[in-house]
């Protein structure tokens, strides 16, 4: 038993029960189907802008890239143009690789102390692999959900659904992305539970989004493959939200409201949590700055004017006295 994940788990259970009771017993469909989703999107947008503009207004006076290769120096020393970029082009390539392929996670190593004692660094790629699977499947799931918000559904979305359901397992056809998402997020959760050092550094704020996303995935999978909900009714509701003519069709299962509420919570929680790494990765100064510290003049923006007294002025002031005692002078 661990307080940190028990709190998060309890919080998510309460968040599941809230819409369940609210819709099933009290009949608050309008609250959970219209008001909360709109509020959530609004809070997400405002919170996101607030966080990013807060970061943007922090001055970055110096270049502080983490250098992972040879710096540009003498012409006969080969520079690593991506891992120690000197130009904006190099930075852009570095950022693209970081954002799309999580390159810094790929470099993850595990430290080990063997008999001897000998130190070893093991190339730890499972985290990178699971993170990549998780993020890309989540993106696919998110884009796939646009079918509920767009009418007519664009052809590219239908193509994505075809590719995602390529294996044609069962009916309704299994989407790979959903299964991969649940598997990857479960791995990321178990990693925090089973590795002692990971458990030690994990906080409630690390477990909460994991539980939340696991619950979202499970409710989604339940709705699609097991206890069916009225898809046409759900699209009617979603289209109502997207076209600002919200309606609550009858006969949508309560599971849908649980799913929708959890997603709304995710949206609200997003800007105020570690999930903001989505925007933050673009603004990481150790990645997005070229390493031209010496080649270019970087002026600290909060420098105030300093009163200086140069040597020339000093000499002008004391010329006569210096001459008298025979001190050497720059100008006679």
């Amino acid at each position, binding site marked *: 038993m661990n307080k940190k994940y028990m709190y998060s788990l309890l919080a998510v259970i309460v968040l599941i029960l809230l819409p369940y009771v609210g819709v099933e017993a009290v009949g608050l469909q309008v609250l959970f189907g219209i008001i909360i989703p709109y509020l959530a999107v609004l809070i997400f*947008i405002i919170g*996101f*802008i607030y966080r*990013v*503009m807060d*970061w*943007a*207004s922090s*001055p*970055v006076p110096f270049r502080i890239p983490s250098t992972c290769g040879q710096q540009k120096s003498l012409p006969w020393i080969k520079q690593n143009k991506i891992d120690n970029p000197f130009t904006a082009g190099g930075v852009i390539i570095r950022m693209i690789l970081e954002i799309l392929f999580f390159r810094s996670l790929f470099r993850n190593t595990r430290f080990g102390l063997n008999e001897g004692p000998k130190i070893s660094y093991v190339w730890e790629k499972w985290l990178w692999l699971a993170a990549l699977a998780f993020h890309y499947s989540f993106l696919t799931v998110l884009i796939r959900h*646009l*079918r*509920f*918000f*767009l*009418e*007519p*559904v664009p052809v590219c*979305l*239908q193509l994505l*659904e*075809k590719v995602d359901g390529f294996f*044609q397992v*069962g*009916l*309704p*056809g299994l989407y790979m992305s959903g299964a991969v998402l649940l598997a990857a997020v479960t791995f990321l959760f178990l990693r925090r539970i089973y590795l002692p050092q990971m458990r030690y550094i994990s906080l409630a704020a690390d477990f909460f989004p994991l539980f939340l996303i696991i619950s979202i995935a499970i409710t989604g999978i339940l709705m699609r493959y097991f206890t*069916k*909900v*009225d*898809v*046409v009714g759900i*699209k*009617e509701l979603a*289209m109502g939200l*997207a*076209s*600002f003519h919200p309606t609550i*069709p009858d006969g949508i299962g309560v599971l849908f409201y649980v799913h929708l509420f959890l997603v709304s919570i995710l949206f609200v929680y997003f800007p105020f949590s570690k999930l903001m790494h989505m*925007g933050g990765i*673009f*603004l990481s100064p150790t990645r997005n700055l070229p390493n031209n510290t010496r080649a270019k003049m970087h002026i600290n*923006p909060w420098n105030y004017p300093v009163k200086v007294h140069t040597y020339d002025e000093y000499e002008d002031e004391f010329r006569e006295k210096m001459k008298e005692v025979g001190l050497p002078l720059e100008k006679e």
Partner: protein
Amino acid sequence: MNDKNIIITGLIIFFVFLTFPFWYNMGKASPVPEPKLTDKAKAAKECVEPKEYMKAEHMQILDIWRDGVVREANRVYISETGKKFNMSLSTGDDSCMGCHSNKADFCDKCHDYASVTPYCWDCHIEPPKEKK
């Protein structure tokens, strides 16, 4: 710092993508589809199972039927109420399509709306309409 312009541009691009459903549907009405029943289906009153069950589970029924017919040569479906039905999607008057002969107004109505593209029609063909 001039980075601020780049950051604001990035934010705007992100929110244009995020709010895509809102402006894609701007000023468009999208009526909810009402699948039409043929006269024959109306006269029969009930499908092989109750309407709500069929609405939710028809794809699974068809999937099980297909496996039963193809692998076990079992063409008889016994419903919850004990009635016997012929298991066939599109052959004969006592098949699914025998009653629901209006694919465009029945099947496709909801499938198109929910962007579902069942692969029934990769193998089956819609029974041709009688020409008078």
